[in-house]
């Protein structure tokens, strides 16, 4: 083993609940979030398969990255600028499952868009979650602008934005890194690298093995964390948030994650992914890995697991019920809010 490898292993060994100062309660909260996100996501697929929803785009496999990162934020004060896989992130940031199903089913009371956007386009001003669009990478600049505003206004807010590794090929991502570095803004670029942009493998997207390598050339730190291990992500994100809070500027935090589903319900991944690749993804599933880790650390008893499972199931069922009972939008509202309406 080379010295470098030894150091990497040591660093990873050092990431334990103890070294991070995480209580059992915190660990179980993270666990609950992972399970909840997975369950919400699975229900979204069920709704689609049963013909109730037109489309799903999934966060399965990305939960470790998102829970690890968002857990490091001040969830009341900081901003989340999400993307279409941000199921776990928006749940942890405060949106209840029912709201995600309202979005999924395009109901009038969908809090993100009133049924105007496709599933997966999250947003919620009260939770400081910026509205999501579909063009990839545009949101990265918005996060940077939010961080600039925070700096000028002295609010101490940090902005965390999420994107896929595919989106890092867009000009906007690079322009954002550059501007954030020049102004040392409190923004974290969370790149969830799942190895594919729909069908295009990373090897055809970029000539370097990691996205984080991009950071140095713009003058900000770049880190790659293993998204199968929630605490690895949490450790890296906590450091990035601390840096941002101290006014030392942005961090590019890449997290390697498995994509456990096809790109979306419109895709068939068997066409371009080998059976081995798909099988390997399942092995590094962060939910599975964290479950094992918590058991090994003696945090998760079988009883606790069942309790959480039960709670998640109830919440999902309740959320689905609420969403299914909610009305579809009335076409007479369709012309509203192209522009602000005059106040009362």
């Amino acid at each position: 083993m080379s010295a470098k490898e030894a150091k990497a292993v040591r660093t990873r060994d050092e990431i334990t609940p103890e070294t991070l100062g995480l209580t059992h309660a915190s660990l179980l909260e993270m666990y609950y979030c992972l399970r909840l996100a997975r369950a919400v996501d699975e229900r979204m697929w069920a709704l689609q398969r049963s013909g109730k929803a037109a489309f799903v785009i999934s966060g399965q496999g990305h939960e470790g990255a998102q829970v690890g990162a968002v857990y490091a934020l001040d969830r009341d004060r900081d901003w989340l600028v999400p993307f279409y896989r941000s199921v776990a992130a928006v749940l942890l940031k405060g949106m209840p499952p029912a709201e995600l199903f309202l979005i999924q089913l395009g109901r009038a009371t969908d809090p993100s868009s009133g049924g105007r956007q496709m599933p997966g386009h999250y947003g919620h001003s009260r939770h400081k979650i910026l509205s999501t669009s579909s063009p990839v990478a545009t949101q990265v600049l918005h996060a940077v602008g939010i961080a600039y505003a925070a700096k000028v206004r002295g609010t101490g807010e940090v902005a965390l934005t999420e994107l896929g590794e595919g989106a890092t090929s867009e000009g906007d991502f690079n322009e954002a890194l550059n501007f954030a570095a020049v102004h040392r803004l409190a923004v974290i670029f969370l790149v969830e690298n799942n190895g594919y942009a729909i069908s295009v493998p990373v090897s055809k997207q970029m000539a370097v093995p990691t996205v984080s390598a991009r950071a140095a050339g713009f003058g900000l730190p770049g880190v790659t964390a293993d998204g199968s291990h929630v605490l690895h992500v949490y450790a890296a994100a906590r450091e990035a948030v601390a840096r941002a809070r101290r006014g030392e500027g942005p961090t590019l935090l890449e997290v390697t994650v498995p994509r456990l589903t096809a790109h979306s319900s419109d895709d068939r991944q068997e066409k371009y992914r080998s059976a081995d690749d798909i099988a390997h993804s399942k092995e590094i599933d962060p939910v599975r890995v964290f479950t094992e880790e918590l058991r090994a650390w003696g945090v998760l008893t079988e009883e606790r697991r069942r309790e959480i499972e039960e709670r998640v199931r109830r919440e999902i069922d309740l959320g689905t019920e609420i969403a299914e009972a909610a009305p579809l939008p009335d076409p007479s509202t369709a012309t509203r809010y192209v522009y602000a309406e005059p106040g009362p």
Partner: protein
Amino acid sequence: MAEKRFIDAIHDALHEEMARDERVIVLGEDVGRKGGVFGVTEGLYEQFGEARVLDTPLAESMIIGVSIGMAVGGLIPVPEIQFADFIHPAFDQIVSEAARLRYRSCNDFGCPMTIRVPFGGGVHGALYHSQSIEAFYAHVPGLKVVVPYTPADAKGLLKSAIRDPDPVLYLEHKKMYRMVRGEVPAAGDHTVPIGPAVVRRTGRDLSIFAYGLMVHEALQAATVLSAEGIEADVVDVRTLRPLDTQTILGSVQRTSRALIVHEDNRFGGFGAEIAATIAEEGFRYLDAPPTRLCGPDVPAVPFSPPLEDWFMVDAEKIAAAARRLVAY
């Protein structure tokens, strides 16, 4: 002749042009191994190899900018933009570069390139997977813009576009891929010239001008109207730039009434150009105001079915507008 789906006609044109001319090269997001998110480029990667069927990184400005360089370097690129909604990052490369290279160099350089773009709504695609973009590009001197409706035109216009020495924006309505079928000349080299519009149905009472999916809706409306004794001339505009004003004015001369239909937002949409041309050059023929029936002025198509239905122009709405116009 063989009956083909709209999507197959496009596929076949690509296949034949690639086989015919090794300079032709297809590039874009997921066009290779996956065969495109709609399956249009299915099989090309296997047949022509990855150097000529290129899965690009996710960057539209790059796709078009690199295509311009390829064209200068002696290739004939056929870039695909995955959804019309995502062509906007490439706006500068298309408008400032591809469209102007010949003019600005006084013919020293050209830019043969066909940009294939699936567009349009009615597919639960909401704000960002439903957009119509023709108004932006039909305004640009140096570009040609075509919107086929029949499978035969889809094939023939794509072949003409690929052989054209200038950049062509080729808009394919994604709802039509598997919905529209039609006869396509099987043998020989079937091309359709860029430019001429075509009268799909003749009638004396009003002219309906449409393109893409809206021709389909207009023809359905015409059938309904015919049963009521109203005979519509339905003109499939096909090429938006250059626009066949002769065929358009000829139709208005026959009917004295013009209904212009498109799915894109009305205000500043392409219909305004057709209406303005008719008003200006066909003024003497008109017995009623040239009338537009278009998508409402909200940002593209909202998602939820009642909202989407509200947005989309269809045969029923066209028939209603036609009745009002004939009663004017």
